[in-house]
């Protein structure tokens, strides 16, 4: 009996640990039609404390549901490449100036959340209509998914553009994505 109780406790403990991974669930990524047919391009601002980098982010979902993204500055110099496979995000390339263990760890987590809760909700935000007030996408308003603290993701629309903003209050990191309209592309 004690053996079973120990086993159940251990199993529950492991389950609670995996919930903290959240975006890295090991489950296949959901289908995101907006980035499956074509690459989505976003005007991007990454702010770290008082420093910021601007540029373009391109995001695409492959037929195997893996999501790939690339961030470059306006001059074409790459900031980072990422891949989100089965909910787990890896940085495939990072520019030397950002290549620090802590920066990579924070970026990996926040990009994972931005893809999962932000870009994953593109259709929902687009259909909300232009000029609607920003919608909180994370923490889940229903209170079911709140395992990562100090992070807020919101989505809004403005002049046919979708705007996502991730704010990581703990590390003073902010990532803002503004989709490019078809004529801008």
């Amino acid at each position: 009996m004690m053996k079973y109780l120990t086993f159940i406790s251990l199993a529950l403990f492991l389950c609670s640990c995996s919930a903290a991974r959240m975006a890295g669930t090991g489950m296949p990524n959901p289908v995101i039609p907006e980035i499956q047919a074509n690459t989505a391009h976003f005007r991007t601002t990454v702010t770290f404390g008082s420093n910021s980098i601007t540029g373009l982010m391109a995001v695409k979902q492959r037929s195997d549901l893996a999501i790939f993204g690339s961030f470059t500055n306006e001059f074409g110099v790459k900031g980072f490449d990422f891949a989100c496979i089965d909910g787990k995000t890896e940085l495939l390339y990072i520019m030397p100036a950002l290549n620090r263990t802590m920066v990579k760890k924070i970026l990996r987590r926040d990009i994972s959340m931005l893809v999962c809760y932000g870009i994953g909700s593109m259709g929902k935000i687009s259909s909300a209509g232009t000029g609607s007030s920003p919608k909180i996408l994370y923490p889940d308003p229903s209170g079911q998914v709140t395992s990562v603290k100090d992070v807020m993701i919101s989505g809004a629309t403005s002049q046919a553009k979708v705007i996502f903003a991730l704010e990581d209050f703990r590390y003073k990191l902010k990532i803002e994505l503004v989709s490019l309209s078809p004529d801008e592309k």
Partner: protein
Amino acid sequence: MKKIFALYIILTACVLRLSGQDATYKNLEGDRREAFKNNLFASSEKIKSLECNFSQKQTLSLLSDEMISKGTMTYKKEERLLWVYKSPYEFVFMMNNGKITTRSDGKTSSFDSGSSPLMKELCKIMVAGLKGDTKSLETSFNTRYYTDGARIKVAMIPKNKSLASIFNSIDLCFDASTMLVSSIVMDEPSGDKTEISITNVKINGTVNDEVFDIH
């Protein structure tokens, strides 16, 4: 015989690929190279101002995607460069007396060029490329010169580690008759490639100082 011919073709292809050059380009060496360098330097010395349009094509290897940006560039002696992206959205970059100013989405920020070695180096490459002053880049790059008759390509490989971690190579292409730059191609270690095509070049026109007055 067929096997030897096939082997010859393969080896030739490998050699061309390793040297990174198109078959149409031939190595420019000795006196011809020195003559070109001197001509280019002499014409660069005469440039007091330069205005042009550019089209930037960036190839993203990871996504097999291309991103196109367009805009204008303005250069004025000494070392003032204004880079205005007009599409896909407006972005302004300016270097003026060691100070870098950017304007994006209506927000302007300024910083000392010394605090961003990458931007400083990029400005140096752009100014030297636009003017044709390849001699000034020889301290940071190993340069080789090639020609296909109509154009002269300067292939530059970074000498120092920090630049080499960002660029595999940078190619500057000049019109052999006008000595004006026509394209700048940057190859990155990530496999991405950025090609900037320069058009409508206007030399020594009137460029008012107010152009560089950005707030």
